[in-house]
C-alpha cells in the first residue's frame, strides 16, 4: 500500500525529469523533429500520470472499503535529525487524502491529455508537460504527506510550478509579471504557513501530522489560535482568499489547461485540504474560525460581484473560483469539513470542466474577451452542452453535482449561527463570547445566500454572452469544435460534474435547497431580463454605478501597489544610496582619514629641515615648560 502511494508520488516526478531531459537527449530525425519531440514528451507526460491515477484510485478503494482496518496507513522512509524536532520523511493515507489523491490525479490526467491537443504547435511543450508532471507529484506529496515539513516541501514546489506555468509564454511581459506576482503573493502566505507549522509542531513536540492532530488538547488556547491563524495566512495565499487573492485573476495569463489544473481544481484546493486535514485543531480555535468566516464572507461575495463585471471569460472563471473557494472556507468556518470537501470535489470537477470548455472556446474564437464571442451554440454543440452542465453545477441547479454540495455547505452555514461555539467534541472551552461568532455566523450565512444569487447572475451572463446572440465579428464562420484529444477530456469531466452529487448518499436539506435554487434563478432571471432587452449589450450594466468598481475588483490591486510595492521599491533605492554614501562612505572615509593622518606624520620625515628644527624647538619648549610647571 505505501509502496503504491509512494510510486504514485514518484512516477509523475520521474515523468517530469524524463520529459525535461529526454527530448533533449534523443536526436530526432530532421524531418518534423519538433513534432517528434512533442510526441516523445507526451508519452512521458501522460503515461506516468495515468499510472499514478490508477494507483491513487486503488489506494482510495482500499482505504474506503476499510481493507486497512478502517484507520489510516502510514509509512516512514527515514527520520532526519535536525538537532531539534526530527523530520520524518513519510507518507500517510487517510480517507481524506485517498479521495483528494484521486481528484488530483484524475484532473491532472485529463489536463495532460487535453494539453497534447491544445499545445501541439508549441515548441516548448516538453517543458510545459514536465512542469505539469512535477506539479502533480508535488500536489500528491502534499496530499499524502505524513509530516508537516514534507507537506511544506510539496506545498512550495506547487507554487514554483504555478510560477513556471503561468509564465509559460514568457515572451509577453504581462505573463511574466503575473507569474512573479503569483509566486510572491503565495510565498508571503507560505512564510506565515511555515511559522504556523513551527508553532504547532513545537506545541505538539513533533512535525508528524498524526502527533499534531492527536496532541492538540495539550496545547494552550494561545498556541492553537496563533498556530492556526498563521496556517490560515498560508491557506489564504494558496487558496486565493482575501486578502491574498489578487494573484489568481492575473494567473489566467497562463495557458488555459493550467488554469483548469492549478487555478481551479488542485493547487487552490490545497488550502482547503490542509484545513480539513488539521480540522480538529481549527475546531479547538474558535477565534481562527471566526476570522476564517469573515475572510470567507468577504471573498465569496466580493469575488462573485467582480466576476459579474469581467469581460475576459477566464477572469470570470477566476473570480468565480475565488468565490467558490470562499464558499468552502465558509463551510469550514461553520464547522462542517465534510460539506467543504464535498464542494471541493464537485467544484474541482465542474470548474476544471468549465476551464477546459473555455479553452475550447478561446481556441476557436481566438480571443479571451466575451465581447468578441457570441452565438457559438450552433458551431460548437458539444462544448455548448458541456459548458451548460458546468454552469448549472456552478449555479447549484439540480441535478448537477454543485446543487448537492452547495446545499450541504449552505445548510452548514445556516446551522452555524444557532450552534454555540465550542460544542464540537473535544474542543477546548472558548474564551470568546458566544455572541461574536453568532453574529459572524449570521453575516456568513447572509453573504452566502447573496453569493448564490450573484453566482446565478454571472454564470448566466457568461453563458448568454458566449453561446447566444449574434456571432460577433472575430469568430467568423470557421468556428467549429476542437480536436478529439481536447473534446474527450471535456466529455469525461462532464460526467462527474453532472453526477458526482449522487455519490454522497445524504439527502439534500430541502429548505435551504429550495431557497438556494430560488435565489440562483432570481439572479439568472435578472440577467436574462436585462439581456433580452438588448442582446448585444453587456448585462453587467445591471450593476449600475458599482460596475466600474467591480470590474477593478474593488481596487485592491491598486491599493496594494501603493501600500506595499512602491514603498518597497523606494526602500530598496534608499538602501542602495545609503550603502554607498553611509556604510561604504564610512569605510572610504576611514581610508581618507588614515591618509590624512599619515600626511601629518609625514611632516616629520619630509626632508624639510625647517620643519624638523621647528618641531625640535617646539618639543624642547614643551619639555622645559612642563619641567618648570610640574617640577
Amino acid at each position, binding site marked *: 500500500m505505501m509502496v503504491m502511494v509512494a510510486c504514485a508520488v514518484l512516477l509523475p516526478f520521474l515523468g517530469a525529469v524524463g520529459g525535461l531531459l529526454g527530448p533533449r537527449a534523443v536526436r530526432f530525425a530532421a524531418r518534423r523533429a519538433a513534432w517528434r519531440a512533442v510526441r516523445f514528451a507526451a508519452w512521458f507526460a501522460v503515461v506516468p500520470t495515468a499510472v499514478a491515477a490508477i494507483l491513487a484510485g486503488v489506494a482510495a478503494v482500499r482505504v474506503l472499503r476499510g481493507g486497512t482496518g478502517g484507520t489510516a496507513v502510514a509509512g516512514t522512509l*527515514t527520520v*532526519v*535529525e*535536525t*538537532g*531539534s524536532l526530527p*523530520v520524518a520523511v513519510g507518507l500517510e493515507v487517510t480517507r481524506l487524502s485517498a479521495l483528494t489523491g484521486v481528484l488530483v490525479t484524475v484532473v491532472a490526467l485529463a489536463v495532460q491529455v487535453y494539453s497534447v491537443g491544445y499545445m501541439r504547435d508549441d515548441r516548448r511543450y516538453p517543458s510545459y508537460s514536465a512542469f505539469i508532471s512535477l506539479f502533480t507529484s508535488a500536489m500528491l506529496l502534499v496530499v499524502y504527506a505524513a509530516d508537516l*515539513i514534507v507537506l*511544506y*516541501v*510539496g*506545498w*512550495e*514546489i506547487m507554487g*514554483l510550478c504555478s*510560477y513556471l506555468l503561468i*509564465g509559460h509564454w*514568457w*515572451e*509577453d*511581459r504581462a*505573463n*511574466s*509579471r503575473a*507569474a*512573479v506576482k503569483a*509566486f*510572491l503573493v503565495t*510565498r*508571503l502566505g507560505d*512564510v*506565515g504557513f*511555515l*511559522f504556523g507549522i*513551527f*508553532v504547532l509542531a*513545537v506545541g505538539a513536540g513533533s512535525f508528524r501530522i498524526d502527533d499534531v492532530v492527536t496532541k492538540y488538547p495539550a496545547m494552550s488556547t494561545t498556541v492553537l489560535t496563533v498556530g492556526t491563524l498563521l496556517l490560515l495566512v498560508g491557506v489564504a495565499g494558496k487558496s486565493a482568499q482575501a486578502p491574498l487573492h489578487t494573484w489568481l485573476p492575473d494567473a489566467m495569463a497562463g495557458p488555459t489547461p493550467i488554469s483548469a489544473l492549478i487555478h481551479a481544481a488542485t493547487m487552490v484546493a490545497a488550502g482547503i485540504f490542509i484545513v480539513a486535514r488539521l480540522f480538529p485543531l481549527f475546531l479547538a480555535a474558535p477565534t481562527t474560525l471566526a476570522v476564517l468566516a469573515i475572510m470567507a464572507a468577504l471573498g465569496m461575495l466580493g469575488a462573485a460581484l467582480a466576476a459579474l463585471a469581467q469581460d475576459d471569460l477566464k477572469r470570470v472563471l477566476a473570480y468565480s473560483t475565488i468565490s467558490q473557494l470562499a464558499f468552502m472556507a465558509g463551510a469550514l468556518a461553520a464547522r462542517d469539513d465534510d460539506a467543504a470537501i464535498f464542494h471541493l470535489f464537485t467544484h474541482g470537477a465542474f470548474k476544471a470542466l468549465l476551464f477546459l470548455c473555455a479553452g475550447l472556446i478561446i481556441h476557436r474564437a481566438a480571443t479571451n474577451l466575451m465581447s468578441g464571442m457570441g452565438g457559438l451554440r450552433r458551431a460548437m454543440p458539444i462544448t455548448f452542452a458541456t459548458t451548460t452542465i458546468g454552469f448549472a453545477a456552478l449555479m447549484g441547479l439540480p441535478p448537477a453535482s454543485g446543487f448537492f454540495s452547495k446545499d450541504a455547505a449552505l445548510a452548514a452555514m445556516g446551522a452555524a449561527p444557532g450552534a454555540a461555539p465550542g460544542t464540537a467534541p473535544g474542543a477546548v472551552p472558548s474564551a470568546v463570547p458566544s455572541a461574536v461568532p453568532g453574529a459572524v455566523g449570521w453575516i456568513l450565512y447572509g453573504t452566502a445566500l447573496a453569493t448564490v444569487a450573484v453566482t446565478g447572475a454571472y454564470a448566466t451572463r457568461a453563458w448568454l454572452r458566449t453561446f447566444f446572440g449574434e456571432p460577433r465579428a472575430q469568430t467568423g464562420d470557421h468556428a467549429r469544435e476542437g480536436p478529439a484529444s481536447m473534446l474527450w477530456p471535456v466529455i469525461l469531466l462532464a460526467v462527474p460534474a453532472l453526477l458526482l452529487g449522487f455519490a454522497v448518499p445524504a439527502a439534500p436539506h430541502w429548505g435551504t435547497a429550495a431557497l438556494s435554487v430560488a435565489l440562483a434563478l432570481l439572479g439568472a432571471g435578472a440577467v436574462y431580463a436585462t439581456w433580452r432587452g438588448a442582446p448585444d449589450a453587456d448585462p453587467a450594466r445591471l450593476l449600475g454605478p458599482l460596475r466600474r468598481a467591480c470590474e477593478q475588483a474593488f481596487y485592491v490591486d491598486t491599493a496594494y501597489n501603493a501600500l506595499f510595492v512602491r514603498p*518597497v*521599491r523606494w*526602500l*530598496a*533605492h534608499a*538602501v*542602495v544610496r545609503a*550603502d554607498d554614501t553611509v*556604510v*561604504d562612505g564610512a*569605510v572610504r572615509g576611514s*581610508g581618507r582619514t588614515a591618509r590624512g593622518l599619515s600626511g601629518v606624520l609625514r611632516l616629520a620625515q619630509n626632508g624639510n629641515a625647517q620643519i624638523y628644527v621647528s618641531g625640535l624647538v617646539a618639543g624642547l619648549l614643551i619639555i622645559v615648560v612642563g619641567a618648570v610647571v610640574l617640577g
Partner: protein
Amino acid sequence: MTPVPALAVPVLIVSVLIVPALGAALLLGLRLQVRALKMYGLAVSGLTLVPVVAMAVTFDYRRAAQIQHEVDLPWIPGLDLRFHLGVDGISLPLVALTALLTFLCFVYLSGDRRTERLRAMMSALLLLEVGMLGTFLALDLLLFFVFFEVVLIPMYFVIAIWGGPGRRAAALKFILYTLLGSVVLLLGLLLIWSQTGTLDIVALAHSQGAALPRAVQIVAFVTIGLGLAVKTPMWPLHTWLPDAHTEAPTVGSVLLAGVLLKMGTYGFARIAIPVLPDGAHAVAPWLGAFAVVGIVYGALACLAQRDLKRMIAYSSVGHMGFVLLGFATLTPVGVNAALFGNIAHGLITGLLFFLAGAVKDRYGTADMAELGGGMLGRLPYLGSLLTFACIASLGLPGLAGFWGEMLALFGAFEPAEGLSRPLFLVFMAVGGLGTVLTAAYFLVMLSRVTHGPPGPLTPSAVGDVRTFELSAWVPLVLLILVFGLWPKALLAITDPAVQTFLEAR
C-alpha cells in the same frame, strides 16, 4: 568500518595540503604552453580532490563528532605552535566543498579563452586552495590564523590579475579591509592564548571555556567575532564584497563566494562558539540582530541593483545573514542550519557566479538594463540554468538552499536557554520577511533578463552552454538537488558534532 592503518591517515590529510602547494611551487619552475598549463592545473586540482574523497570515504560517520585523520606535530616549539590538523563532522563537508569548487574552477578555466598571465593565475589559485583547505583542517589557533591569512594574498592577485576595469581599487579594498579584520581576529586569539596557555582548539573546545572568566570571554568573542564578521561578511562590514565580486574574474568570484566567505562562518562554529560559550551567550542577541538586518538589507539592496554580479554579491550578504542567525540561536538546530546553509550557499552561489560569468562572457556586460530580456529564447540552456540557480538560491524546498534557511528560522523560534525569546521571535519574523524579499529580487531579475522579447544586445558567437562549462556546472546542479531532496546526507554528518559541543555544557 574497519580501522584505517595508522600511517595511512596522516598521509591523506597532509597530502591534501601538500599536493596543491607542490603544484603551485612546481609551476614557478615550469615553462608550459597554454594547453599544457591548463591540463596541469586540472591535474593538480584533481589530484587534490583524490585524498579529500579518500578522507570522506574512510571517515567514520558513526563517530562524526570526533576528530579523525588527525595529525599533531610540533612546529615552532618556542611558540607552542603545533601542526595540528584533523576533520570532524563540522569541517569535512567544507573541506570537500573547497576541493570540489577549486577543481570545477580549473575545469572552467580549461575552456576559457583568456590566456594572458595564466601561469600566475594558476599558481595563485593553487595557493589559494592551500590556504582554504588549511583553514578548515587546522586545529591550532595560530595555525588557523596563518592559513586564514595565506588566503588573502593569492585572492588579491586573482582579482588584480584578471579583474575588470576597477580591479586595482577593488583588490586593494579587499585586502586592506580583510587584513584589518584579521588583526582584530589575531588579538582575540592571542587573548584566549594568554588566558588559557594553549592554542589547541580541541582542548579549548573540550573545556568549554572553563578557564576563561566571563568578561574575558565577551571581549574575546567580540574581537574574534568582528574579525570573522568582516570575512563572512556581516552587515555593516560588507562593503568590500560587492566591489571585489564585481571586479573579480569568474573563478575568483566563485571561490570568493563559495569558500572564502565560509571561512568566516566556520570560525564561529570551530572557535568562537565552542571555546567561548559565555561570550557567545552574551553577544548572541547582537549577532542575531546584525544578521537579520543583513538579511533584509541585502535583499533590499539586491532589489535595486543593475549589475547581475553585484546583485549576486549582495544576495550573499542576505544568505550569510541566515547563517549567522543560525549561529546566534546557539541551538543545535540553528548551528546545523548554519553549517547546512554554508554548504548550500557555496554550491548555489558558486553556480550563480559561474552563470553570471558566462552571461558577461557572451554579452560583454552584466548590466541588466543593457542585457534586456529574452535570454530564454536566445540562450535557452543558459537561461534555464540561471532560472534553476536563482530558484535554488531563493530557498525553494527540494533544493539545497531551503534547509539552511528553514532550520535557521526554526532555531530562532526556540533559541537557546537564557536568550530572549521575544527578541528572537522578532528576528524570525524579520527573517521570514527577508525570504519573501529574496524571492522578489531573484524573480524580478529573472523576469527582466530571461523573459520578455529579446533585447538589443546579441550574444557573441560563442553560442549556448559549451561542454567545459556544462562539466563544471552539472556537479553543482546535482549536488544542489541531492542535498535538497536528501538533507540527511549533510545533517547526519554535522548533527553529532554540533550536539557534542553544544550539549557538553
